[in-house]
């Protein structure tokens, strides 16, 4: 009886006119009844794909996916937090750089035309200046924030600031 109903339903299944709840029954019968499957494929070869099973993914692959997704989410969260905390320090660092840059420019202007040449020469000698070890100064500048200042002994006008949040250290 089921087989008879199934065979009568092939056309309406293919035409997309079979009721949704009957479709599930149709697909189940297609998988389970070899005789009807043969008949159905003769009538409509593309029904071959309706027999694709609900294969389960490997648990290891799923767990690897979970780890990858959550790792990216945590990484993005840390980046956002770091960026938010850095913002005021970036502003301070930018102000310091502008002040230093302004000072250098002022000195070169005050020192006359040769001042510019001197700064160019100084830049050319940059590699020589880097040979000497930098001075490292550490200070606690606010809650959970350490500021490392590297300055060259022979160049008191240049300073580089590194801001590290101990809470974000891996």
């Amino acid at each position, binding site marked *: 009886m089921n087989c008879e109903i199934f065979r009568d339903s092939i056309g309406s299944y*293919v035409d*997309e006119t079979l009721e*949704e709840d009957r*479709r*599930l029954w149709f*697909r189940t019968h297609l*998988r389970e009844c*070899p005789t009807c*499957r*043969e008949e159905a*494929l*003769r009538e*409509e*070869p*593309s029904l*071959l*794909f*309706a*027999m*694709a*099973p*609900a*294969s*389960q*993914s490997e648990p290891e*692959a*799923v*767990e*690897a*996916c*979970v780890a*990858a*997704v*959550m790792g*990216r*989410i*945590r990484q993005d969260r840390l980046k956002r937090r770091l960026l938010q905390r850095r913002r005021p320090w970036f502003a301070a660092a930018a102000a310091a750089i502008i002040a230093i840059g302004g000072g250098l420019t002022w000195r070169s202007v005050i020192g006359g035309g040769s001042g510019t040449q001197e700064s160019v020469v100084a830049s050319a000698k940059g590699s020589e200046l880097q040979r000497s070890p930098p001075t490292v100064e550490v200070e606690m500048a606010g809650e959970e924030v350490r500021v490392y200042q590297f300055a060259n002994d022979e160049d008191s006008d240049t300073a580089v600031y590194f801001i590290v949040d101990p809470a974000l250290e891996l």
Partner: protein
Amino acid sequence: MVKENLCVQIAGLGSRDEVVMNDLQWIQSAKNGDEDAYAELVRRHSGGLHRTVARILADDTEAWDVVQMAFLKAWQKLDRYNPRFSFTTWLYRIGTNLAIDLLRSRTSRERAHKAGTEHRLRLVGSGEGAGARADSTEATNVLQQLVEVLTPQQRSAFVLREMEGLETAEVAEVLGCSATTVRNHIFQARKALRRELKARFPEYLPASERG
């Protein structure tokens, strides 16, 4: 959302409604910043989404990348999720759109290569008959033809409707089109597949049809 293949089977849960309820609870917790709750959602749905995307792309490995991207995108847009709709539908919409974008970005040569070398279409069946023969490397070739003859939209609609067993309305929601458009995609896909199967893979047909 799902009638058969997409239904999430959770141990200890008796019905689909309970699963959906739990999804909503996890989503609410995730919205409040609970990352463990979101990890649970990823654990529940990544397998099913992967199977669907792998069938659309014909590439198991690339499908995992798309699944990860889909979950990241869903996390970023979690505030916009409307609980009136199934989380699965929403998630599958994101994943399917990413897969379609990827298919469109590939050259036909890349598609054929990937389909021919990496994917294995798993079909059920035992004993005599075409269904029994389908679970073989030949099925890979059939899928390769799928990639060649179907548009990304047709392919997605066919996979969701015919292979994953979604209702027409659900497929329409996932693909963001009307039910009529879905039926048209299915009709065109079936027509193309019927032609290709008869022309290139007569061994999948019953003996009386092979000629």
